[in-house]
């Protein structure tokens, strides 16, 4: 679990073997000169590790490589989005398979992507293309508490922190990078967290962020028993 995004890619690969294998091949072999990767840890003001924070790096003065037409998956399991935070590169098509026995109504009113998949079961007809960078907040119309975020990054270098608050950004060529962090409940704008990191060839650098968390209001969740039989 050093890099959740690659893990997620693997799991996607297991579910969709052909597509996953192709993506993995492109990822692993296209960047032979890559460094060891950038280790990032994110903690809150009290020193606790922050999970589901997105860290991303952009080469200074560099031009981002064109979108790859990648795909990602956000499941709905037990009336929750899984995962809660997904980082994708702009141009990624995200599919929202419903694993529950009941219908869901996925929507977003975010500027980066406003969409709505009215009540559906199973696999929606087509995935949703996240073509603009930005943060997209997802919800379910009939389950107020269901909430997830898609971080649409311009850069291909990003990772999501695990429960230990750590993430590793892979695939970085040696050079100077601007590194930022985004978190759904972050108080300040991501730009304020920006810092310059110099990536060497041999040993990957490490950096850590301390972020201020804003209070998180969540809608009340209906008791499990009511929908237990429809998972």
């Amino acid at each position: 679990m050093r890099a959740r995004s690659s893990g997620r890619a693997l799991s996607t690969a297991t579910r969709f073997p052909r597509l996953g294998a192709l993506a993995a091949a492109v990822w692993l072999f296209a960047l032979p000169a890559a460094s060891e990767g950038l280790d990032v840890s994110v903690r809150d003001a009290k020193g606790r590790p922050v999970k589901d924070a997105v860290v991303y790096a952009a080469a200074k003065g560099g031009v981002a490589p064109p979108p790859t037409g990648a795909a990602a998956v956000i499941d709905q399991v037990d009336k929750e989005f899984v995962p809660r935070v997904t980082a994708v590169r702009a141009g990624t098509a995200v599919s929202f398979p419903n694993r529950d026995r009941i219908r869901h109504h996925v929507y977003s009113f975010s500027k980066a992507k406003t969409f709505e998949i009215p009540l559906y079961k199973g696999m929606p007809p087509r995935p949703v293309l996240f073509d603009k960078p930005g943060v997209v907040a997802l919800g379910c119309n009939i389950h107020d508490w269901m909430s997830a975020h898609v971080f649409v990054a311009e850069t291909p270098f990003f990772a999501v922190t695990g429960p230990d608050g750590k993430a590793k950004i892979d695939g970085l060529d040696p050079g100077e990078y601007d590194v930022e962090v985004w978190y759904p409940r972050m108080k300040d704008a991501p730009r304020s967290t920006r810092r310059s990191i110099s990536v060497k060839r041999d040993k990957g650098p490490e950096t850590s962020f301390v972020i201020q968390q804003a209070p998180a209001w969540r809608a009340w969740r209906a008791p499990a028993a009511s929908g237990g039989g429809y998972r």
Partner: protein
Amino acid sequence: MAGLARPGGVRRRVQVIGAPARIRSLLRFRSFQSRLLVFFLGLFVLVQASVFLSVNAANVRNARQQIDEALDVTASVFERVFRERTHRLLGSARLLASDFAFKKAYATRDHGTILSALENFQGRIGADAVMLAALDRVLIADTQHPQRTGTSFPFPDLISAAEESERGEAEAVVFIESRAYQMVVVPLLAPMPEALLCVGFLIDDRLTAELQGVTSSHVSLLRKTGDGKWDLFASTLPGGPRQRLPSDIRGTGDGAVSVGGGEEYLSRVVVPPGGGRGAEVIAVLQRSLIEALRPHRRLQAALAVLFGVSAAVTLAGGIAIGRTVTRPVLALARRARKIEEGDYSEQESVERADEIGHLNKSFNHMVKGLAERDRVRDLLGKVVSAPIAEELLSKTIELGGEEREVTILFSDLRDFTALCEGRSPKDILSLLNTYLTRISAVIDGNGGIVDKFVGDAVMALYGAPLRHADDGERAVRTALGMMMALEGLNAEFLEQGLPRLGMGIGINTAVVVAGNMGSLTRMNYTVIGDGVNLASRLEGLCKKYGVSIVVSETTRALAPGFAYMELDRVRVKGKSEPVTIYEPLGEGNRVGPHVLGEIEAYGEALGLYRSMQWERAGARFAELKREFPERFLYHVYLDRAAEFVRNPPGGDWDGSYTFSEK
């Protein structure tokens, strides 16, 4: 000035002394009945008053305690009701906030659409104000003031409170244009917080009336104004107390708000949910003390009536019981007064078994005894002279006497036998009684004592049993008075055609034995001795000398205040010693000069007679007889001188004349 000041000072002092005395006299009840009544009534009032006061105090305390307890309950009920209302409002707001259609409308970012949707909501839940605020506290829409869009949200504290809460919700009482609203804030989640939805419900008298219905207390809501005063914005109180309440609120410190004011209401101050941490808004819960005391007032009225009735019964009972004692006592007192006056006639029999009955019985016995004694005394007074009766009653009566100097007066009527002739005994007795009554009056008037009546004769005593310093004079004055009384009686007799009465009186003073004489069962108080006999003899001598009164030398010596004419020196029967006898002519200063001249001339003649110059004496007596023919004395001496001339006495003649007859 000092002289003027003094009387004032004295008067003042008198007043000072007088006031407590008057009070004391007021407190000193004259009659037993009033004392009894005052005691009973006082006791009754004391007991009743203390009962009344303690019951009153207990009731008021009880009422206060009950209200206090009720207010405690009311306060928690109020708080719960208010909270529930808030929850209900919050629930409504939440439903609105999670409405997908609204979220969609919000996502349009079109102000008109959003405002319109809000107005629609307002109508749906019957709210009075709906606002939408951005997370950065800028007003997005306000149904009451559409034009305020873009300005800062008017209740930033509300948003702060919401941010601090778990679910981004808050409630508060806010004021919009001086009207109070209960405002709830919920986040608009899409699904992340996008904005804050504020829903407000007007707080007015309708709400307080509703709360009153639940809590059965007066509910008033007040707001603290900038200058520390209180502003009432909703209340169930009627006009007067409603106006007063804001000024009755004391202590504006945090949490320490209390209500002062009158006794009408007991109050409790509660900070309603959303009232602010500094108690900017308070609810005053009040219960009427008057209302709570109403049953007590009814009880009080009943007690007052009961008090009045029982006081009247006590009064009546006291009077009745008092009367049973005082009436017989007063009757006894009245009877005692009458008895003091000598009236024994009233006889009252009270048939009672109690102490009063005993008293009455004893009293009756006593009256009987007293009446009997009085009757005896009366009788005795009539039979014997009053002082003797007194003497007899005051001492134990026993035979025997004492020697004492007594002046004895004997009187006898002349020609009484002639009067009796040809008259019925009844008439004679009547005449005699008239005479003796007059004579007795004179004797009594001069302090003498009638010792006995013997037919028309009277024996009177001076100096026994009572002694006076002037007993001799009293006796002589009595004799002169008796003569005057007889003159009066004779004048009356003359009118009735009755014959004229003459009287002889003999007076002598001697040491005699005075005491009770007689047998053991029948005795008299009297005097005996030679002196008594002499007095009787002297009375008899009156007719020998043609005088009405004959006084012995011993009596004359005791009564020097009279003018006397020496009658003779006599040796009466049974007496060896001669006694000089005199006729009193009147009080010494009332005798005229011609009488004194006569006495002088007579003295000279008597001197010649005593010195045995019979012829010269006879001549002088003849002269006197011519000059005073009415005086029989000169006749006697003229005869006697002529006799001695013819038949001179022996050489041992001492000038006295011996009467051999009785």
